[in-house]
């Protein structure tokens, strides 16, 4: 221990010799983090311990906001349940669809560049424009979707006006932004060494087994990343629902994030909204940690594997 410190000393002095220059270089990020992330984070926790109306007196109430939420507020549980339902639809679909699209794009067919642009394009469109487009698509009387269904002899439902279909409609609209995860999968696919597939083909391994035993393990870090980011965005779903249905019909798309937003800006109850934000943060944190722990069982990192081989 003592020797270790001793041997490290020169390098530490060297770092000090560099002065504040390195800090200055990263200071925009540090300051941004302190003022716009860490500051508000701490502040919101303080807020969550108060009865904090927008105007008027703030009173410290300890954890009362948290106990009210759990014990007396059915809307909290309802909107949480709606968000979980949405996540159960959105997360698997987002991963499977972006993976399939990436596989298709990786086939190197003619016009791949056009398809790649087309599939990614919706991710570039901002929330409001995207919602306007989907409102046209879903309109019961004049919508594109029901028009297309009518050719198949199907009398389409009122997508945004039906308690059952509205959440499905929002899921599909949200999936439109899967271009980002598709690109991640595509990059992952292209980094898989061709030799693996060639070796498999020579050994007579059928294509489906190539996917199961080569593609999926090689892509597992990307799958993990997409899984975690999808879970986070599922919980934060707000813009599309707010603009497309405003929580309706009959609160069937009243997401948790929307309840937070409305509590803060419609009901002016900042303390309660901050407390709910913290609950959301803890839920996301817990889910992410669970996924990370579980991932040890199925995520395969190339570097780690080589080290294991070497150890063995």
């Amino acid at each position, binding site marked *: 221990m003592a020797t270790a410190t001793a041997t490290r000393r020169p390098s530490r002095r060297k770092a000090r010799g560099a002065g504040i220059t390195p800090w200055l270089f990263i200071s925009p990020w540090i300051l941004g983090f302190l003022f716009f992330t860490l500051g508000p984070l701490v502040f919101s926790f303080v807020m969550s311990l108060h009865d904090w109306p*927008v*105007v008027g007196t703030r009173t410290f109430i300890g954890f009362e906001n948290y106990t009210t939420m759990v014990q007396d507020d059915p*809307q909290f549980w309802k909107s949480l349940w709606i968000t979980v339902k949405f996540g159960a639809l959105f997360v698997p679909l987002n991963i499977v669809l972006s993976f399939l699209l990436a596989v298709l794009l990786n086939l190197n067919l003619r016009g791949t560049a056009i398809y790649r642009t087309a599939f990614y394009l919706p991710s570039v469109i901002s929330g409001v424009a995207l919602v306007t487009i989907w409102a046209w698509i879903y309109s019961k009387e004049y919508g594109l979707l029901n028009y297309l269904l009518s050719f198949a002899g199907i009398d389409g439902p009122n997508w945004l*006006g039906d308690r059952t279909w509205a959440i499905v409609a929002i899921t599909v609209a949200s999936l439109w932004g899967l271009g980002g995860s598709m690109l991640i999968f595509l990059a992952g696919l292209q980094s898989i060494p061709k030799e693996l597939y060639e070796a498999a083909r020579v050994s007579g391994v059928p294509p489906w087994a190539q996917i199961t035993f080569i593609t999926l393990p090689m892509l597992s870090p990307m799958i993990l990343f997409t899984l975690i980011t999808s879970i986070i965005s599922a919980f*934060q779903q707000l813009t599309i629902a707010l603009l497309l249905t405003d929580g*309706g*019909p009959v609160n069937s798309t009243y997401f948790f994030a929307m309840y937070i937003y409305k509590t803060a800006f419609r009901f002016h109850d900042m303390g309660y909204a901050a407390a709910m934000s913290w609950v959301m943060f803890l839920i*996301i944190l817990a889910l992410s940690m669970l996924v990370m722990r579980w991932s040890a069982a199925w995520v395969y990192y190339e570097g780690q594997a080589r080290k294991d081989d070497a150890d063995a």
Partner: protein
Amino acid sequence: MKRRHLIIAPAVLTAVFWGGMGLAQDKVLRFATWDSDESLAIQEAIAKKFEEANPGVKVQVEAYGDGYDDKLTAAMGAGSPPDVMYMWNFPSYKEALLPLNDFIARDGEAMNLADIPEGLMNISKIDGNIYGMPAGFTTQVVFYNKDMFAAAGVPEPQAGWTWADLRAGAAKFRNADEKVYGFAVDAKPDPYDFEQFLWSNGTRYISDDGKTIDGLMNSPEAAEVLNMFADMIKTEEAVALNIGDDTSGSALFKAGKIAMFQSAMWSKSGIDESGVNYGVVMLPSFGGKPVHSAIGASAVSIAKDSADPELAWEFVKFFSSPEAVAMRTNDLPVRTSVAEAQGMQDDPIFKPFFDMLAVSNKEIHAFLKNAEWGRIQENLAVAIEATMIDQGNAQAHLDEAVAASARFLK
């Protein structure tokens, strides 16, 4: 996590931004409004007039538009509210507003409150404190398409008509193939305006002491109102609006797709532009019971933290003066003298609005009675929407809303 940034970042930014602005000039009066376009231009003209009368004063008109509440909330949270602001939601903001009673008493003669109808003063009064001066108002009426009535041979509606009359008339316009209907029912009406139908049927959302909704909001009279509208959707006497579709009633009325349209002053200029040959009539009654309209009014208020309340009051006083009230052509004049000078009470288009105002001074809007009304209203809105989608069953939905709201009445 992003969510929390969205809540706090605007407050910080606004504070930085307005903190800087405050230093720019002395004797600047900040005036915030939610209006845009024409209505905003009118207010800017009023501000200009005030500047001419008060040299050395600059009125900075801040048009917050659709994000009015968000921006006002942020400005107040940052301790830098505008001096004078448009206001309607008094219970939420009253602690940040200056009661005007003393100013009004002092300048009693110039204010001449007898000239302003009581129903309009009611909207800004809480526990005897007056938190704002009404600037413009509208009552609710029914617009009808005269050409459609003539073509269908249906007699035009008259003041004193009933909902039964409206429904009988509406049925004659029903043409599902052409998508033409007699009336439009909004499945997601603003509960604020919707209470007028309960009032007109002899009930209300909440007791005057703001403590009881059970037996009122879910009374048989309230259920009757909701079921009636739902039934109009079922029988196709009316087209349903706002069920997964955002086609507006005014768009349908302007296109000649509905013969009657229940709305307010804010629809008038659009209908004028469309060229539809229309008439205006008072709201129908429930079997002859007295009708009572919602009062949609905007008022101007002074921030408690205003640096110069005297100057702010001068501006509010000017905003309420007959001169400024007469300049407001996009809503109705809050001063009877101005309405009379412009001959509005004799104009067949404007008269029903004033007739509605004359009978609408008995009830107080629910949000003035209970500070948690915003939360209760959410449950009510769901009950109304559910009734319209299910085309009935109002009692069960209202009972559910009352049960869910119990925790806000403790």
